[in-house]
C-alpha cells in the first residue's frame, strides 16, 4: 500500500495546531504569577532542545518511526517492550486530553449528561476520520487551521478594540526575581505542550521533503510561533483578568474573552472559544490516537492499521472514564504526578538514553541505518 506523505506546509500546520490545541485554553505556567508568559517562553526553548534530540534520532533512521528503530537499537524483544511502553504512553496522553475535554464540557454545558456519552461522541468522530486515512486527518487539519487563524485574528482585534487590557497588571516584570519563574517553568512547562512533540518521532517518516535541514527549521519555527502565541495569550489573559484571578481560573482564556462587550451587541464570545477548544481537542486527540495506532501496528505486527482503530477507540473511551474517580483527582494527578513520573521519563530520559545507545552502538548499527528499507521489512 502506498503511504501518504505530508508536505512541509502540512507539517507546519500539524505542529502549530497540535501545540495550540488544548494548551491555549488552560493557564500554562501560572505558578509564575504575572510572569507566566516568560515561563512559557523558557519552556518553549527547552522544548526546542528536546525537539532537536528527536530530530537527531530521525536523522539517523530517516525512514523509520520510533517504535521501528527501537527494535533496531535494542533488538527485537527489548525494542518491542519499549515500543509497547510508548504505545501505552501515547494512549495515556490521548486519554488525558479526552478526559480533560469531557470534563470541561460537562461542567460548562451538559450538566446532566454522563461523561461516557460525550467522550464516545468525540471518539466516534475521530474513528470516522481516521478510518478515512491519515491523509484526510491532515487535510481536515488544513481547513481547521484556516478557521483557527480566522477566529484568532478576529478575537485579537475584538480584544484590542474592547480596550480591556490593563498593562500595569504585567508589571513589574520578574518582580519576585528569577527563581519563581524557573520553578514554574521546570519541569512542568516544557513537558506540556512542547515535550509532547515526542509524538512526531512517529510521524517524521511520513514527511515528504528532500532537505532534512528544512524540516528541522520549519519544525522549530512552528514551535516558536506556537510558543509565542501561547505566551502572548497568557499575557493577554493576565492583562485582562489580573495576575491573581488569572492564576486561579481553570480556563483563563474563556474568562478573558467573556469580558468582551462591544456596544451591548458583540458579547458572549466564549462560544467561539469553546468552538476552538472542541476542534483543537479533536485534533490533538486524533494525533495521539493515530500515533498510538501506528505504534500498536509496529509492536504487534499488524498489517492493516484500519483494523486497530476501532479497538483502540474503545479502549480510549473506557480508560478516559476509569482514569480518575472525579475531576479534582484527575487535575491533581495531571499537575503533580504525570509531569514528573510520566512525561519526563518518556519525553526526556528515554530519548536521551536512545541517543546514548545509538552513539555507543553506532558502528554496529551502521548497516541498518544505511539500508533502512530492508530492516523495516
Amino acid at each position, binding site marked *: 500500500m502506498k503511504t501518504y506523505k505530508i508536505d512541509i506546509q502540512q507539517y507546519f500546520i500539524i505542529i502549530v495546531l497540535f501545540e495550540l490545541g488544548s494548551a491555549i485554553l488552560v493557564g500554562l505556567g501560572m505558578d509564575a504569577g504575572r510572569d507566566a508568559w516568560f515561563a512559557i517562553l523558557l519552556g518553549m526553548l527547552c522544548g526546542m532542545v528536546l525537539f532537536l534530540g528527536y530530530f537527531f534520532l530521525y536523522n539517523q533512521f530517516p525512514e523509520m518511526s520510533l517504535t521501528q528503530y527501537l527494535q533496531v537499537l535494542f533488538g527485537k524483544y527489548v525494542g518491542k517492550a519499549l515500543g509497547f511502553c510508548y504505545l501505552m504512553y501515547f494512549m495515556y496522553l490521548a486519554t488525558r486530553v479526552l478526559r480533560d475535554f469531557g470534563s470541561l464540557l460537562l461542567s460548562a454545558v451538559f450538566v446532566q449528561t454522563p461523561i461516557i456519552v460525550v467522550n464516545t461522541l468525540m471518539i466516534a468522530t475521530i474513528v470516522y476520520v481516521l478510518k478515512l486515512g491519515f491523509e484526510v486527518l491532515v487535510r*481536515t487539519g488544513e481547513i481547521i487551521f484556516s478557521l483557527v487563524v480566522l477566529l484568532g485574528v478576529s478575537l485579537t482585534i475584538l480584544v484590542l478594540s474592547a480596550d480591556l487590557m490593563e498593562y500595569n497588571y504585567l508589571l513589574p516584570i520578574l518582580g519576585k526575581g528569577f527563581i519563581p519563574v524557573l520553578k514554574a517553568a521546570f519541569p512542568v512547562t516544557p513537558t506540556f505542550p512542547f515535550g509532547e512533540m515526542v509524538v512526531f518521532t512517529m510521524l517524521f517518516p511520513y514527511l515528504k521533503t528532500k532537505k532534512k535541514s528544512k524540516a528541522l527549521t520549519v519544525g522549530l519555527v512552528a514551535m516558536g510561533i506556537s510558543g509565542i502565541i501561547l505566551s502572548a495569550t497568557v499575557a493577554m489573559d493576565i492583562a485582562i483578568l489580573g495576575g491573581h484571578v488569572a492564576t486561579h481560573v481553570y480556563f483563563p482564556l474563556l474568562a478573558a474573552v467573556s469580558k468582551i462587550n462591544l456596544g451591548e451587541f458583540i458579547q*458572549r464570545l*466564549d*462560544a467561539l472559544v469553546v468552538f476552538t477548544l*472542541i476542534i483543537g481537542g479533536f485534533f490533538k486527540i486524533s494525533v495521539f490516537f493515530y500515533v498510538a495506532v501506528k505504534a500498536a501496528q509496529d509492536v504487534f505486527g499488524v498489517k492493516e492499521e484500519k483494523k486497530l482503530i476501532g479497538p483502540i477507540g474503545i479502549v480510549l473511551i473506557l480508560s478516559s472514564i476509569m482514569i480518575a474517580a472525579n475531576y479534582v483527582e484527575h487535575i491533581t494527578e495531571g499537575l503533580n504526578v504525570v509531569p514528573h513520573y510520566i512525561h519526563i521519563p518518556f519525553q526526556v530520559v528515554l530519548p536521551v538514553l536512545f541517543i546514548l545507545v545509538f552513539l555507543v552502538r553506532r558502528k554496529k548499527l551502521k548497516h541498518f541505518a544505511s539500508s533502512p528499507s530492508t530492516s523495516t521489512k
Partner: protein
Amino acid sequence: MRNRRKRPMIKTYKKLTDMVAEKSFGEASSLQTETFSEEIHSVEQKIERKEGKLSPVLHVTVDSVKKSLGNPVDLIVREFEFELQQKVTATLLFLEEMNDPQLLNEFILAPLMSLTSDKQSTPVPVSHALHYIKQNAVALGRVLDVENEEELLEALLAGFSVLLVEGNTKGLKMGTTGGRMRGIEEPTSEVVIRGPKDSFTESMKTNISLIRRRVRSPDLRVEKYKIGDVTHTDVAIIYLDNIVNPLLIKEIKKRINEVKTDGLLESGQLEEFIQDETVTVFPQFMNTERPDVVVGNLLEGRVGIMVNGTPFSLIAPTQFIQFFQSSEDYYMRYDISTFLRLLRFSVFLISLIAPSIYIALTTFHQAMIPTTLLFGIAAQREGVPFPAIAEALVMEITFEILREAGIRMPRAVGVAVSIVGALVLGQAAVQAGLVSPAMVIVVGITAVASFAIPSFAVATSARLLRFPLMIISSVFGFYGLTLALIVIIAHLTSLRSFGYPYLSPFAPIQTQDLKDSLFRFPITKLFKRPEKLAKKNETRTQPYQVKKKREEETTR
C-alpha cells in the same frame, strides 16, 4: 479508486462468457482486463457484419429492413427509377419526421430522377451506379457507403436517409437529418445578468457547434462514444489537447467505456456511472447548460462531457468550490465578484446550519443569547407545547412539502398553494400556538438562503444534511454540531473527482489556486491555470507580457 461501480464489469463478463460459448474465443482467464473486453467488442462487431451483407435484389433488402424494424408506420419506402446505361430501380428509405423533407426532395429525389443517359459522356454500368450518384447526382455534404444491414439500420435510426440501387450490394446513407428540435434559447437554470444568453439544447450537434464557435483552436478535441445497449445514446467528451492532462483523458475514456446500461436519458445517469464515490450527498460533477461555462472550464484544463438528448453537460473533474462560482463572476469587476462569492458561501452555511444553531441556542446555550432577546424568545415559546427540535422539524418538512408541490403543480392552482403555504408557514401557525415567530424567521431565512446558492446540486446536499444536523444539535448542542461539521469536512476532504482532491485548493492548500476560489483576484493576476489540472500548459497567456509589448510599441 475506492468503491468504483462493479456492475458494468460484471455485465461485460456475462457477455464475454456468451461469446466464449458461441465462438470458442480463447482462454477466459484474463477476463477482468480491459484490453480483453475491448477485443471482444470488436470481434462482436465483425461477426455482426458478416451476418448481414446486403442483397443485390432490392426488395429482399427492403423486406428484411421492414422485418427488422417491425414494419413501422413512420418508415417511408420511396421507389423510383432513373436512367444510367439502362433504366435502374432504386429505393429511398427514411424515417419520416427524422429527416428534412426539403433536403430529400430537392437534393436527392429531384436530381436523381432527372438523370438521363445522354447527360453522361460514357454510359455508366449499373455496378458503378452508387459511385456515380455519389460523385455527380446527390448534392449533399454527408454521403457515406453502407456495407451491411446492421449499418443500414443504424443509419436509418440515427436519422439518415438510405439509398439502395438494384444490383448493388452497398447502399448510400445521406445526411438529411432534420425534424423539429427546440431552438437555442436563454438558459433557464443559470440566469445571468451580464454574459452570453445562449444555452445548450437537446441536440448534441448544436451544442458542440456552440462550443466550436467560441474556441477557434485546432487543439479542440471532440470524441464520441455510444452508450446504452438499447438507446445508443451519443456521448461526447470535449477538451483542449494542449492544456489537458493526458492521464485525465485516459481515465475518463476508461470509465465511459466501462459503462454498460440499457439506456442513457440524461447526463445525471452518466454522472452516477462514472463518479468516484457513490456513498455521498455531495455532487461530484458540475453540470451546466451554458456554453461559456464549458469553455471557461476547458481553458482550465477540465473536460466537458455531453450527452445527446439533454442540455446539461458535465464538467470533470469538479471541485467543491466551483459550485459557488458563477460564470458572471468573470464578467463583472473582481471586487463585486469576490463579495458575491463570499456571500454565496455564507448562504450555503446558513442554509446548512441556521436551524441547528437556533435549536442548539434555545435548548442548551440560552446564556449565549443577549438577555433582552432571550426574554423575547422565551415569551414567544411560552405558548408552544413542543421542544425546539419538534417545532423545527415540523416547519422544515412543511416547507419541503410546499416546495415540492410548487414544482409539480399546474400553474392555475399555483396561487392557491402559495396562499395556503403562506398561512401554514406564517401568521396562522404562530397564532395557533404550533410554532414560535422566531422559528418562522429561521425557517424563512433557511429557505431563502437555499435558493441563493447558484448550483442546485449543492443546494440539495445542504437540504439533506440539514436534518441530521438539526437532530444532533438538539441532543448535543454546539458540541454535537461542531463534531458533525468536522465529520462533514473530513468527508469532503476524502472525496476525489477523477483523482483530484474535491476540496482543493483549500485542502491540500494550493496557494496559486486560492486566487480564484472564494476570492477572485483581478484577471491580470490569474495567469496560472489550476495546479495539477493543466499539467501540459500551466501558464495562461500573460496579460503582463502583452501589456509590456504594447508599452514598448507606444514608446517607440
